[in-house]
C-alpha cells in the first residue's frame, strides 16, 4: 500500500513544478519517468485492493458462515427441544443454547475482521486517490511547461 515515501516523492515533484523556477528538459523527461513508474505502481495497488475486496479467504468466509449457522441452528434446536421433544430446557437444550451463543460470537468475530479489512481497503483507496490526483496535477504542470 502507498507509503510515506510515495507521498514524499509526489510532494517533492509538486513543489518543484509549482515553483516558477526553470526546469531542464532532461529533468522533465525524468519527472515523467518517475510519474510513469508511480502511476504503474498505483495501478498495481488499486488492482490489489480490488482483489482484497472481491476475495476474502475461504477459511474466513467458512468460519463466519459456520458461526452464524451454528448460532441460528442452536437457538432453533433449543426451541425444538423445549416445544416439541422434552417440553422443558434440559441438558441438551442448555448445550444447544451455549453452542448457539459461541457460534454467534465466532460469526461476530469473523464479521468484525471483515469490517476491519474493508476499512483498511477504504483508507488505502483514499491514499491511492490522493496520489493519483497529485500525479494528475504533476502531468498537467509538465504539459503546461511544454505549451508554447
Amino acid at each position: 500500500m502507498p507509503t510515506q515515501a510515495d507521498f514524499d516523492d509526489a510532494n517533492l515533484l509538486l513543489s518543484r513544478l509549482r515553483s516558477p523556477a526553470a526546469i531542464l528538459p532532461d529533468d522533465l523527461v525524468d519527472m515523467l519517468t518517475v510519474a510513469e513508474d508511480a502511476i504503474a505502481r498505483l495501478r498495481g495497488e488499486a488492482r490489489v485492493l480490488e482483489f482484497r475486496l472481491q476475495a476474502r479467504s475461504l477459511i474466513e468466509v467458512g468460519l463466519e458462515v459456520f458461526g452464524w449457522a451454528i448460532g441460528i441452528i442452536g437457538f432453533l434446536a433449543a426451541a425444538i427441544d423445549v416445544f416439541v421433544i422434552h417440553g422443558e430446557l434440559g441438558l441438551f437444550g442448555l448445550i444447544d443454547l451455549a453452542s448457539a451463543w459461541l457460534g454467534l460470537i465466532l460469526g461476530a468475530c469473523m464479521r468484525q475482521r471483515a469490517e476491519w479489512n474493508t476499512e483498511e481497503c477504504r483508507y488505502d483507496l483514499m491514499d491511492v486517490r490522493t496520489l493519483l490526483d497529485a500525479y494528475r496535477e504533476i502531468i498537467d504542470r509538465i504539459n503546461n511547461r511544454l505549451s508554447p
Partner: protein
Amino acid sequence: MRPAATWRRARVVDPCLASRPCVLRWIAMEDRIQPVDRTPTRRLNPVLWSSAAVTLVWVVVIVTDELGLLPLGRLPILSLPFLAALVAAGVAMIVWQDRQVTLELLNQAQHEIKRTDLLAERVAAARQRLCMAHRDDFGSSTRFAG
C-alpha cells in the same frame, strides 16, 4: 551498482539526496499531500457487539429462569423462536450492509484503475511532446519555464 532508473529518480525527486528531509520541511503544510490519518484504528462495531451482549443476557435469563432462579414463568423460554428469528434477521442485515459497502468500494477501486490507464496515456503523450520539443532544441540550453 544502482540501476539507471534509480539514479534518474534520485536526480529529480531528491535534488540532493542528503537534503531530502530539509526540502520536505520547506514545503508548506497546506501544500502537502498526506496519507489518510488512520487513528483510531480497528474500532469495534458497536451494533454487532451490543447485539452479542444482548443475546448473551437473553440466554442467561432463559437459563436462570428454567433453573427456577427467576420468577418469570414460561415467558423467557417462549421467546426462544423469536430470538432465533431476530438473530437470523440481524445477521442478514449486517451481511447485506457490508456487501453494499464492499460493492461501493469495489466500484471506486475499478474507477481508480481506469484513471491510472488514462493518466498513463497522458504521460505517454506528454513524453512524446517533450521528446519532439527536446529534439528541436537539441544542443541549445533551452529551459522550460514555469
